[in-house]
């Protein structure tokens, strides 16, 4: 019986989760192999796998995958090393927040994709431009999220530290930073997800390598099987990196687990 908020046993949960994937692929197979849609616009699951295999073996698609992973990682690191310190400083010192917050709030609504033409003019169509797209797309958001989290550090912990003789400097280093470290790491995990979106956008325009390049290239050849394979590869790598990141956070911050 279905009752609101009633928990589902773990085994059943797994079965249900897999069942939707099966249903989804079955529906996809039915409309494509059954001839309900034009093969030109949507490849069936089997040709998708065949196309994917050929891409990997003959067209050295794994090189594109590696290039894209490097870009995601590079852009992510670049955005993080700029945004995390600024976010902490903004959250901890209110005058700095008053100074920067309005501009950062404005800047985060500037769409990263609209910057691509400008970034190409400035940085060419090389690697730097790809990294900058990811950087522009995530840095302002991360600054704001971290500033808000740092700003809401538990006041009672700060007060306790003061009564134990902590200086202002000690409060920032030994209370505010460790207290927020798990949430900052969790924020960065989200950023990694955004980086995957931005990198593909960057690769769709003015690029000669990467998963996004393969996808846009396949479009002109109506190779929908390859496009779908590329999209699935992105999804799988995203999922894997997310798991890895979660595991890393759990290992780094065992004290924050419920």
């Amino acid at each position, binding site marked *: 019986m279905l009752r609101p908020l009633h928990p589902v046993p773990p085994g059943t949960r797994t079965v249900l989760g897999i069942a939707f994937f099966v249903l989804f692929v079955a529906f996809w197979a039915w409309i494509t192999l059954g001839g309900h849609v034009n093969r030109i616009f949507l490849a069936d699951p089997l040709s998708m796998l065949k196309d994917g295999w050929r891409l990997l073996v003959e067209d050295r698609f794994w090189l594109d995958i590696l290039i894209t992973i490097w870009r995601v990682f590079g852009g992510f690191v670049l955005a993080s090393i700029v945004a995390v310190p600024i976010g902490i400083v903004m959250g901890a010192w209110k005058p700095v927040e008053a100074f920067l917050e309005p501009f950062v709030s404005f800047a985060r609504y500037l769409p990263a994709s609209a910057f691509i033409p400008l970034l190409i003019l400035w940085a060419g169509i090389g690697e730097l431009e790809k990294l900058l797209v990811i950087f522009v797309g995530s840095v302002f958001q991360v600054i704001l999220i971290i500033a808000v989290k740092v700003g809401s550090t538990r006041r009672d*912990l700060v007060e306790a530290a003061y009564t134990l003789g902590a200086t202002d400097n000690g409060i920032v280093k030994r209370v505010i930073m460790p207290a927020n470290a798990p949430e900052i790491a969790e924020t960065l995990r989200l950023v990694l997800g955004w980086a995957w979106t931005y990198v593909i956008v960057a690769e769709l325009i003015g690029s000669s390598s990467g998963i996004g390049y393969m996808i846009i290239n396949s479009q002109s050849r109506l190779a929908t099987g390859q496009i779908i394979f590329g999209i699935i590869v992105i999804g799988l790598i995203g999922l894997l990196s997310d798991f890895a990141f979660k595991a890393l956070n759990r290992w780094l911050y065992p004290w924050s687990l419920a």
Partner: protein
Amino acid sequence: MSKLVIEGVSRTFAGVRGGQPVQALQPVDLAVAANDFITILGPSGCGKSTLLRIVAGLEAPSTGRVLLDGNAVTRPGPDRGMVFQSYTLFPWLTVAENIGFGLRERNMSERERSEIVASYVDLVGLKGFENHWPKQLSGGMQQRTAIARALANDPAILLLDEPFGALDNQTRGLMQELLLGIWERRKKTVLFVTHDIEEAIFMASRVIVMSARPGRIKSDVPVDLPHPRHYTLKTSPEFSALKAQLTEDIRVEAMRTAQAQSA
């Protein structure tokens, strides 16, 4: 000379949304002798926690001043150790690291630190739990750690703001005996805020009763019961007499608070 002197300390909070300013504390004068255990007893909202926070330096008084060993209090510092009602252990530090936090802030060497920490772990009976995270501890154990953390700094005065308020009755009784036992062995000046009459008498050498908001000192009752105190003391006739007296005092104030809220 008194260890702690509170001179005409009052606190008025600015009105919310252009409303009238609210006086939480009327001018309070209090002198505390060295190694006295003072409990401040009052109904909730009487400003007793505000008074304690002013002594700690976490809040500024609107008028008056606080002197500790003759020096005016302007900001929080390690000479005034504090234990809060809410659990304020640093969740990212182990029990031992929490207790050593203040020593670490003083740049004490690792070796000196671990010796002091070990002695305080022992004092509050947490041997074997040194490497636990706070979330792995019961409420009582967390507050024992918080007491050890405050004492490890060897403060001139220990301030406690309803430290056992969130604990169940049995644990609370045990914690009272533990803290009193520590005080009996290693004399310390203590200011202990509570709304529990029994607790106030059991712990104190002197009970300060506060009136309903805006708080002021209503009475100052010495407790001459002998030390070391045992929990059975709570059922003795002398204890009961004091309890009856204070219950009457505090009841009037609690009723006043209730009336003020319903009005």
